[in-house]
């Protein structure tokens, strides 16, 4: 793989390649370029998981013509598909090398367990939402119990916005989470459950179930489960599995001019 990347850079198939390099014992994201070809020998895959595609989006915004190569697991690929759909990246400018990936509802098989959440602690099992739970299991709680469990999780929120900031498919310039008419600012925890529900709503048809939000959450809120639920609704209604293809999403398909019927008001 190192050789392939070296070749790509040499032959200018890509201008830069986003991968990982071990720095003082820590796997860190690294930008490989033609100027430092020998560095490609140090490229590692490991189990490091940063949103390389978010970095690519940031770079492409300033250098739209740049050809970017990156290491992708299945979740990175799903994120790329969403970013293509929403015109944040141009597929022509992206080259990928696939590596082992993590299990996800949106993928049939996975052979990397890096993302497997740790076993939930006893109190969390008792009064919160276990991060390992799937949507069906969570729905088995009675409505009142379920509400209380979610409110327990939300009350821990430190309002770091890490779930949004790390999200590979969060690219809006203005964010509803900071819209003071929706959510009051200035205190922790934030207004609940509205803070988390506003974000959840925006994840419908957008979330690619990579789990980075949950991984970045300082207080282990079961965010992935919450967004899976919204995506299940999108899937049920539109038969659309987010991120599985780079075709249009149901949300922009519905906006096609030709599909609109004129109705008297």
């Amino acid at each position, binding site marked *: 793989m190192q050789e392939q990347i070296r070749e790509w850079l040499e032959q200018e198939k890509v201008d830069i390649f986003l991968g990982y390099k071990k720095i003082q014992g820590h796997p860190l994201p690294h930008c490989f370029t033609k100027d430092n070809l020998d560095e490609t020998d140090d490229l590692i895959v490991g189990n490091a998981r940063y949103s390389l595609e978010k970095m690519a989006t940031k770079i492409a915004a300033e250098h739209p013509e740049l050809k970017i190569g990156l290491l992708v697991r299945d979740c990175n690929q799903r994120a790329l598909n969403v970013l293509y759909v929403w015109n944040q990246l141009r597929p022509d400018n992206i080259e990928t090398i696939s590596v082992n990936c993590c299990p996800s509802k949106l993928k049939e098989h996975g052979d990397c367990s890096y993302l497997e959440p740790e076993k939930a602690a006893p109190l969390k099992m008792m009064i919160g939402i276990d991060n390992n739970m799937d949507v069906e299991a969570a729905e088995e709680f009675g409505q009142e119990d379920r509400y209380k469990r979610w409110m327990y999780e939300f009350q*821990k929120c*430190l309002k770091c916005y890490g779930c949004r900031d790390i999200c590979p498919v969060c690219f809006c310039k203005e964010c509803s989470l*900071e819209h003071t008419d929706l959510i009051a600012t200035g205190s922790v925890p934030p207004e609940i459950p509205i803070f988390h529900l506003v974000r959840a709503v925006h994840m419908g048809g957008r979330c690619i179930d990579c789990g980075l939000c949950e991984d970045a959450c300082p207080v282990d809120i079961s965010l992935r489960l919450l967004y899976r639920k919204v995506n299940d609704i999108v899937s049920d209604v539109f038969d659309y599995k987010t991120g599985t293809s780079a075709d249009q999403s149901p949300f922009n398909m519905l906006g096609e001019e030709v599909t609109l019927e004129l109705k008297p008001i």
Partner: protein
Amino acid sequence: MTNSIAEIEDSACIFITGSNTSACHPLIARRVFRAKEKGAKLIVADPRNIQLSRFADVAVTQRLGSDVAMLNGMMHIILKNGWQAQSYIEERTEEFEEFKAAVESYTPDKVEQIAGIAQNDLEKMAELYATNSPASILYAMGITQHTTGVDNVKSICNLAMLCGNVGVKSGGVNPLRGQNNVQGACDMGGLPNVFPAYQPVTVEANNEKFAKAWGKALPGKIGYTITDMVRAMIDGKLKALYVVGENPMLSDPDQHHLVKALEKLDLLICQDIFFTETAEKADVVFAAVSVAEKDGTYTNTERRCMKVNKAIDPIENTLNDWEIISKLSTAMGYEMNYESPEQIFDELTTVTPSYGGMTYERLGLDGLQWPCPNADHPGTQFLHKDQFTRGKGLFHAVEYLDPAEMPDEEYPYWLTTGRMFAHYHTGTMTRVSPHLDTEQKTGYVEINPEDAKTLGVNDGETVRLSTRRGETEIPARVSNKVVPGLLFVPFHFAESPANILTNSAFDPIAKIPEYKVCAVKIEKAA
């Protein structure tokens, strides 16, 4: 901290007092939440209802400045029930009997009268702390910023020793440092009485050691603390002040008094990355660089010395702090020709025994926790493992004393000050940060709904706060976070400065001002 941040997760009991951990140290609060979910007991004692109070097994809102009474009361109950770690006390501590006699009179009834803590709550606090081991105590400025700050800390140490919690993993006495390198500034001898690694300036051998290392005869007399400096400025004894990376105009108590002092100076030198309220008053301003533009090390609250790496070049015509000091020093006639922070680090490790085994290479990205005295030493996860640094742990007999100022007819409310989650210290850095500014744009005073009703004040309305030192107008935030009779003002906001109100009365030993307690009057602004 005697112990480490990650260890908190495995405590059997966590007692948090005088620290709004989830707002001020969120990544330490993470460990508290995780410990709680693993089954730890949580005790929160804070004059305000903080976020962590909701998760506590017992949460109390003690009256401001009543901490010694509260802690003595807990220890009274522990002793009465025989829950103390008797063999630990016998083997590892001294002066226990004097201490024991001192807490004798702190009955739950007396403590309820002083601190307003219900007797059964106090009993529960004592029982949870004493019967779940290891237990960790976390505290911050809510304990130290009092005229009895040293007494408060001694009482916390008493409690930890009483239950055998010092020198054990996941236990300990854990002050959470507010600023990123408070620990390092102290370790490096940024104090008037000690050289690096707390070597007293009054010990002749130390003086000789540093005089030899630096090639210059050194003063042996203890210098002024910041609190002394302000007084010396007023008295005309201190003529020049060199302020590096601080903003005393907002961080010092009793702002009017400080302005008077600064105006008496012949020379005020200010070195910062922003044009602070203090810089406005300066004769010379040196433009320094930010965290992203420099190499060097910070030492965090768990004594972990970590490498900061330069990400970008210094902006425009700015210089590294070390370069400015070197230039100044050389121009003063004392050559400083350092070429890099690493060269300075290699010098300081030779005179700072606790850092003796550290090099940039060894620090890597994980850092090393001091003491790390030699090149083979792995660093120290928690202190006082087999014995205390001084040998035996010393119990102190501590009596409760009232704060310097308490509410009266003229100033009927209690006022306390502190931080809020989106801003840092005097706001110099965070208020220019768009996302943080969005979160909180103005200062505010928290007032209980009951008090707001009595005063006819609605949320967001401007009120006037006045104390014996000064007054300010500020929007009211009606909130159950404060109990009736108590007001809270964050100190980040220059236009409604908390420290125009605060009392400069200070602890006689630590010289720390009583930011956490004063008496205040509140009225609707005209």
